[in-house]
C-alpha cells in the first residue's frame, strides 16, 4: 500500500460540488458512489412498497373467507408485489447499489469503466419502474397474471399486461448495461498488482453475476417483446389457438428467470463472505474455492431452468436430467457455506451487528437451500408443486437470503458510505425481531404447503386457519422490526460525523481510504503487493 497517509482531507463524495448543485448534482452525477446511492434509495423505496403489499396479502389470509379484499384485488396484489420485489428491488439487488459503490474502490480504481453508461442504466431502471407504475394505475387495472406472465393467460386477461411486460423489458436492458459495465471494469480497471486472484471475493461474485445479467437477460427480453407483440399485433407466438406453444413461453421465461435467482443471491453470498472474513479476524479459508464456486453457480445455474416445469409437460428424460443438474447447484453453494464456517474456525470473532446479520443469513439460507432439494427432486416436487411450500422456499432464499444479506451489507458498509455509525444495540434488536418474525411468517407455510394449501388464492379451507393466523402475526413482527432497522439507519444519517475510516478492522481496499470516500476514491492509485485479505494495516 502506498499513499493515503496524508493528514488533509479532500471533500467527500457527499459534499463535493461539481458542475451542478442540489438535486441535479445527484441525478446528473456520473460518480459511481452517487449512482450507487441513487440505486440504494430507490431500491429501499420499492422494497417498502412491496413490503406494504405483502402485509396486506397476509392480512387477507389471516382467516378463511374474504377479509379485506376480493379475489381480483388479491390476484393483482400478488402480481404487483412480485413485480416490485423482484424486478425493482432484488434483481438490481446488491449489485446495483453496493456493487456500484464498492467495485471501483475494492479493485483500486477511480470509477467504473463507463460512468455515463452507469448513470444511463439508472435512468433506464427508473423508466422501467415508471412504465410499470403507469401500467398499474391505467387501462383496465393492474396485471393479475403473477410476476411470471405465463401464457396463454397473460394473452387473454383484460388487465394491463402490456405496460408491465414492457416495463420489465426496459428493466432488463438496465440490468444488461450494468453487467456489461462491471465486466469491463473488472477486466480493465484493476490497480497495478491486483491480479484476478487478488480480488476480494465480493468482486468475484459480482463478476459471475455480471455474466449472468449479460447472457440470460436478452432471452427474457425478447420473450417479453413477443408477449407484447402477441397482445398488440395478434401474432400468436404463445397462443395455442394460432399455433403457438405456451410451454415454449415457460422455457424461454425460465431460461432467464432461473439464472436471475443467482443474480439475486450471488452478490449476497459475496457480501456475506466479506463480512465473515472481516469479523473472524482471519484470512479467508479456501479463497480459490469460493471464487470458483461463484463462477460454477453462474454456469450450472443456466442449465437447471426445467425444474420450474416438472408438471408442465416435459419428457421423462428431460425431467430427470434437469433434476440431476439442479442437485449439482447444491455443491458450489455448500462449498461456500463450509468455507464460511471454516473461516470462523479458530478465528477471533468480533460480534458486531453485520456479523450477526451474516449469521442470520447462513441459518435462513440453509433452510431455503435444503427445502430447495425437496423441490428439485421430481417426485416430491409433484406433491408440493404450486403450493405455499414453494412460496416459503422462495422467500427463504430471496428474502431471507438475498434480502437479509442486503441489510447485512448495508450495516457493514454504512460507516464507509456515510462516515457515521448507527446504534449497534438497536440494529441487533431489529435483527432479532426480524429473525423471529421472518421464521414465524414463512416456516408455517412449509407445513401448509405439505398439507396441500395452494398458492395464489385469497381464500383457503378451514383446516389451514391456525397456521395462517400464526403466519400473519409473524408478518407484523417482521414489518415492525424492519421499520426499527430502517429508522435506526436513517437516524444515524443525521448524526455527527466521526472518525471511522476503518471501524471494523477490514483488510480490503475500501477500509484504507477515508469515510466517506473522496470523489476520486484514491489520491494515488494503490499498488497491490500482498495476497487478498492480507493487506497490511496502515
Amino acid at each position, binding site marked *: 500500500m502506498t499513499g493515503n497517509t496524508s493528514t488533509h482531507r479532500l471533500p467527500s463524495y457527499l459534499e463535493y460540488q461539481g458542475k451542478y448543485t442540489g438535486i441535479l448534482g445527484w441525478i446528473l452525477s456520473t460518480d459511481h458512489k452517487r449512482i450507487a446511492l441513487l440505486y440504494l434509495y430507490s431500491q429501499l423505496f420499492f422494497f417498502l412498497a412491496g413490503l406494504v403489499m405483502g402485509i396486506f396479502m397476509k392480512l387477507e389470509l389471516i382467516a378463511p373467507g374474504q377479509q379485506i379484499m376480493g379475489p381480483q384485488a388479491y390476484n393483482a396484489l400478488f402480481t404487483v408485489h412480485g413485480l416490485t420485489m423482484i424486478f425493482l428491488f432484488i434483481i438490481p439487488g446488491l449489485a446495483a447499489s453496493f456493487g456500484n459503490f464498492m467495485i471501483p474502490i475494492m479493485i483500486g480504481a477511480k470509477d467504473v469503466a463507463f460512468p455515463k453508461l452507469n448513470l444511463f442504466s439508472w435512468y433506464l431502471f427508473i423508466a422501467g419502474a415508471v412504465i410499470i407504475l403507469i401500467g398499474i394505475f391505467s387501462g383496465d387495472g393492474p396485471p393479475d397474471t403473477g410476476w411470471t406472465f405465463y401464457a396463454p393467460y397473460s394473452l387473454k386477461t383484460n388487465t394491463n399486461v402490456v405496460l408491465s411486460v414492457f416495463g420489465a423489458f426496459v428493466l432488463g436492458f438496465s440490468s444488461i448495461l450494468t453487467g456489461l459495465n462491471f465486466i469491463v471494469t473488472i477486466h480493465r480497471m484493476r490497480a497495478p498488482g491486483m491480479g484476478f486472484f487478488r480480488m476480494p471475493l465480493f468482486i468475484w461474485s459480482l463478476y459471475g453475476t455480471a455474466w449472468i445479467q449479460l447472457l440470460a437477460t436478452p432471452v427474457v427480453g425478447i420473450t417479453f417483446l413477443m408477449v407484447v407483440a402477441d397482445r398488440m399485433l395478434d*401474432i400468436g407466438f404463445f397462443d395455442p389457438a394460432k399455433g403457438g406453444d405456451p410451454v415454449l413461453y415457460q422455457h424461454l421465461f425460465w431460461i432467464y428467470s432461473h439464472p436471475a435467482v443467482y443474480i439475486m443471491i450471488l452478490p449476497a453470498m459475496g457480501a456475506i463472505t466479506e463480512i465473515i472474513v472481516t469479523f473472524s479476524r482471519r484470512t479467508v479459508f479456501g479463497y480459490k474455492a469460493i471464487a470458483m464456486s461463484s463462477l460454477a453457480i453462474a454456469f450450472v445455474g443456466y442449465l437447471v431452468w426445467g425444474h420450474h416445469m416438472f408438471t408442465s409437460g416435459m419428457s421423462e428424460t428431460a425431467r430427470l436430467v434437469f433434476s440431476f443438474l439442479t442437485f449439482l447447484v447444491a455443491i458450489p453453494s455448500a462449498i461456500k457455506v463450509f468455507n464460511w464456517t471454516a473461516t470462523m474456525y479458530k478465528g477471533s470473532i468480533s460480534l458486531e451487528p453485520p456479523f450477526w446479520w451474516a449469521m442470520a443469513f447462513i441459518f435462513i439460507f440453509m433452510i431455503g437451500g435444503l427445502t430447495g432439494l425437496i423441490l428439485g427432486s421430481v417426485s416430491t416436487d409433484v406433491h408440493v408443486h404450486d403450493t405455499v411450500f414453494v412460496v416459503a422456499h422462495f422467500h427463504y432464499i430471496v428474502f431471507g437470503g438475498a434480502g437479509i444479506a442486503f441489510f447485512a451489507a448495508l450495516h457493514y458498509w454504512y460507516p464507509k458510505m456515510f462516515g457515521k455509525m448507527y446504534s449497534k444495540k438497536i440494529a441487533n434488536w431489529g435483527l432479532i425481531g426480524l429473525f423471529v418474525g421472518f421464521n414465524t411468517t414463512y416456516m408455517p407455510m412449509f407445513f401448509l404447503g405439505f398439507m396441500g394449501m395452494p398458492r395464489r388464492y385469497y381464500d383457503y379451507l378451514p383446516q389451514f386457519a391456525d397456521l395462517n393466523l400464526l403466519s400473519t402475526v409473524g408478518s407484523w413482527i417482521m414489518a415492525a422490526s424492519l421499520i426499527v432497522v430502517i429508522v435506526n439507519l436513517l437516524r444515524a444519517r443525521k448524526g455527527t460525523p466521526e472518525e471511522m475510516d476503518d471501524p471494523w478492522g477490514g483488510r480490503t481496499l475500501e477500509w484504507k481510504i477515508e469515510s466517506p470516500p473522496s470523489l476520486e476514491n484514491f489520491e494515488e492509485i494503490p499498488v497491490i503487493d500482498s495476497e487478498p485479505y492480507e493487506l497490511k494495516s496502515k
Partner: protein
Amino acid sequence: MEQNHVAHTDHFDPVASKIGMWLFIFTEILLFGGLFIVYSVYRYNHQVEFHLAAEELDVTIGLINTIILLISSMTVAMSITALQLGNKKLTLILLAATILLALVFLVNKYFEWGAKIHHDIYPGSEFLLSLSKGDMLFFGLYFFMTGLHALHIIAGLALLGVVFVKVKNGTVNQNRYSLLENGGLYWHLVDLIWIFLFPLFYLIH
C-alpha cells in the same frame, strides 16, 4: 506484473470500449437467438405450412437487400481503414455510402412489406387468420423478425450518423477512432443477423 493496465490519468481506454461493444453485440445475438429458437421449434412443428408459406416471399428483393447490406458492411470497414490512414475525406464518403445503402435497404423493405400488406397478409388480418396455424406463425415470425431487424438498421443508421458528424468535426480522428470502429462492429452485427434471416425465410424450401 500486469502491463496492460492503462494509466488512470488517461480516462480514455479504447480496449475497454471495444470489449464493451463486443459484449453488447453478444447480448444482441442472444436477443435474436431467442427468436431463432422459436423459429426452429415452430418450423419443426409445422413443416409443410412453413414450406408453402416461404414460397410466397419475393426471393429477388431479399437477394437485392442481402447484396446491399454486404456492400454496406464493406464500405463501413473501408471507412475505418481510411481513417486509420488519415484520409478524412474518403472516410466521410464511405460513411455516406454506408448510410445511403442502409436507406435503400429500408426503402426496399417498405415496398416488400407494402406488397404483403396489400395482399392482406399482416399479423391479425382476417385473411391470415383464415389460413392454417403454420401460415400464421410463419408470417408472424416474418414480420416480427424482419421488423426487429429493421429497427436495428434504424438504430445503426442513427449511430453511423452520429459518427459521421464526429468525424467531420474531428472528435473522431486518426488517433481516436473507437467510436467509428464500434459503429462498424454494430453495423456488421446488423448485417450478420440478416445473413441468417435471408436463408431462413426466403431460401429454405
